[in-house]
C-alpha cells in the first residue's frame, strides 16, 4: 500500500448540468494534496458536455465516464457498486473518495463504506491534512477534529465551507469511458417531483430569503419570492414552515435540511432555534426581521429589525424598488 494521495470525486448532476456542489467538493479534494479524478455516471441528456465541464475544472486530471442506460436515475446501490468497482485492486487505486454532503452524497458515501468495510467521515468543513478533518457536530455547536485510520478515506463535503473550483479552460483532463458495474435489482425508480424554480439553487445562491412560522401560510411566501427576485436570491424556510405545509421539503434550511452560507441571509418570521442556525450561521451577513424583541435569531444577526414582517417586507420591497 502506498501513501500517495489519489482522490476520486463523485460528480452530482441531473443529466443536464453539473451541480454546483461538485465544484466545492473538487476544492476539498485538491486540499488533500494529490491527484484529483472525477467519476461521472449518467445517461443521455447533456452527459457529454458535463464530462467536458468536469475535464475543464482546475486541478482535475482524469474523468471516469460511465455513460450507460442504468445510470439515468441510478439509485444509491447502483452508484456505490460502480464507485467500488473503480477503486482499483483491493481499493488501492484511490486513497480518498469524496462526494458533496447533499442527499446524493450523504446516501452514497456511507453505503460505499458498508461495501468496502471502511468508516466514512461526514460533512467535512476543513481539510487539515490528508487524514485529518474538521466537521461540525451537535448542530454546529461544536467542531470535532477527526483523524481517519482507514486506508480508504470516504468523505462527504460541506460544500459551503469550500470555494467552488474554477473552470480554468485547460480542458486537459483525459476522459476515460468506464464499464457499467452491478445494477441493483432491488430498487425501481418510479418518479421524481421536483420543485421547479427559476431562482438560483438554494445552497449556492448569493442571497437567500427564508421564511418561518411567522409567515402564517403558503400564500404569504409570495412576498418573500418577490423579495428574493429583487435581490436575485433563492427562497428557503424553517422546518416549522415546511412541516406546516407552507413550502415544499426542499426549502428547509438547518441541521437536518440544507446548509447555506450566502453573502446575505434574510430570516423573516424565524425564531432562530439551534437547528435552524446550524444551516445558516456561516452566512456572511444575516438580517433578521421579527416582531419579538427577544427572538434568539437577533443574537446572531448583523442587522436586526424588530418589526411585524407584514409591515417590514413590503417596506423593504418598496425601498429596493427606488
Amino acid at each position: 500500500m502506498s501513501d500517495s494521495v489519489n482522490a476520486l470525486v463523485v460528480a452530482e448532476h441531473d443529466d443536464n448540468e453539473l451541480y454546483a456542489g461538485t465544484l466545492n467538493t473538487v476544492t476539498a479534494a485538491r486540499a488533500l494534496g494529490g491527484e484529483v479524478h472525477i467519476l461521472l455516471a449518467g445517461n443521455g441528456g447533456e452527459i457529454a458536455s458535463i464530462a467536458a465541464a468536469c475535464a475543464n475544472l482546475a486541478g482535475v486530471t482524469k474523468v471516469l465516464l460511465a455513460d450507460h442506460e442504468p445510470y439515468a436515475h441510478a439509485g444509491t446501490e447502483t452508484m456505490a457498486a460502480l464507485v467500488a468497482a473503480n477503486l482499483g485492486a483491493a481499493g488501492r487505486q484511490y486513497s480518498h473518495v469524496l462526494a458533496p454532503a447533499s442527499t446524493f452524497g450523504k446516501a452514497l458515501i456511507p453505503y460505499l463504506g458498508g461495501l468496502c468495510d471502511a468508516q466514512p467521515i461526514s460533512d467535512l468543513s476543513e481539510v487539515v491534512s490528508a487524514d485529518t478533518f474538521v466537521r461540525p457536530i451537535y448542530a454546529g455547536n461544536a467542531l470535532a477534529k477527526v483523524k481517519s485510520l482507514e486506508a480508504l478515506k470516504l468523505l462527504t463535503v460541506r460544500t459551503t465551507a469550500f470555494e467552488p473550483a474554477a473552470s480554468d479552460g485547460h480542458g486537459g483532463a483525459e476522459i476515460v469511458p468506464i464499464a457499467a458495474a452491478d445494477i441493483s435489482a432491488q430498487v425501481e425508480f418510479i418518479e421524481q417531483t421536483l420543485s421547479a424554480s427559476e431562482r438560483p439553487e438554494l445552497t449556492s445562491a448569493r442571497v437567500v430569503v427564508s421564511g418561518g412560522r411567522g409567515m402564517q401560510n403558503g400564500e404569504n411566501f409570495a412576498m418573500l419570492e418577490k423579495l428574493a427576485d429583487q435581490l436575485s436570491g433563492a427562497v428557503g424556510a424553517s422546518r416549522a414552515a415546511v412541516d406546516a405545509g407552507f413550502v415544499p421539503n426542499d426549502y428547509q434550511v438547518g441541521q437536518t435540511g440544507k446548509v447555506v452560507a450566502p453573502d446575505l441571509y434574510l430570516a423573516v418570521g424565524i425564531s432562530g432555534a439551534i437547528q435552524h442556525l446550524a444551516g445558516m450561521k456561516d452566512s456572511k451577513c444575516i438580517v433578521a426581521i421579527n416582531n419579538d424583541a427577544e427572538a434568539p435569531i437577533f443574537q446572531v444577526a448583523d442587522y436586526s429589525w424588530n418589526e411585524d414582517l407584514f409591515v417590514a417586507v413590503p417596506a423593504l420591497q418598496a425601498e429596493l424598488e427606488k
Partner: protein
Amino acid sequence: MKILVAVKRVIDANIRVRVKPDHSGVETANVKMAMNPFCEIAVEEALRIQQAGDAEEVILFSAGPQKCQETIRTGLAMGADRGLHVLTDERLEPLAIAKMIAAAAEQQGADLIILGKQSIDDDHNQTGQIVAALMRRALGSYISEIKKVAGGFAITREIDAGLEKLRITSPAVVTTDLRLNEPRYASLPNIMKAKKKPIDELSVADLGVDIGCRTEILSVVEPPARQAGVMVSDAGELVDKLKNQAKVI
C-alpha cells in the same frame, strides 16, 4: 413481517450543549437525555405498520451504556413489543453500530429495519446506509412515506431537489425523515405495561462483530461565536447598511 427499529440515546434536542474544557468532547454529565427524534419517528412508523396488520412484531435495538435501556423503555411505552440492548461503554462509530444491527437483524429474522436518518449528536447520517450495504438489502433513505406492496415497499424520499418515489424489494432498510409521521406520546397505562416488556441484554461478543474504532477524535472545540450586530428601525436604514456597510447588495 418482523420489524427491527434502531434507537439511539442522545442529549435532548432542546439542550444547549457545552464543550468540555479539556476539549475531549461535550459535557454529558447531568444533562437531559432523550431518544433521538428521528428514532422516535422510526418507532412510530413501525407501530403504524403493525397496527395496519402488516407486522407481527416490533423489536427495538440500542447499543451503548446501561442507560440505553431507558431509551428502549421509551419505545416500549409507545407500543413496541420487546427490546435488544447491546451493553458496551466503548465509543461506537456508525460502521460498528451497523455491524451490530445487521447481526441482530439476521439473528431475529427481521424483514424490515427502520433507523433514523441522522443522530442529532454526532450528525453522521450513515448507519442505515451502511446496514443496507452490509446486508446487501434495498435501501430507502430519508423517507417521508412507506407503503407495503407486493414483494416490497413503495417509498417516497425527501431529496435536495424535491421528492423521489421508489419501489424497493423486501427485506429492506429504511431511514426516516422528519415528515414521515408525528410520533405519539406514551399513555400512562402503556408506560406501566412497558415495565414488564422484555429487554434482552447482549454483549458485543454475542453478535460476533468487531467494533474497533477506525477514527480518532483529536479534539472538540466551540465554533467561533457570531457577534450580535445592530438594530435597524426602517427599510431605508437597512438597505443603506446592506449597500454601504456590509456591501452585500
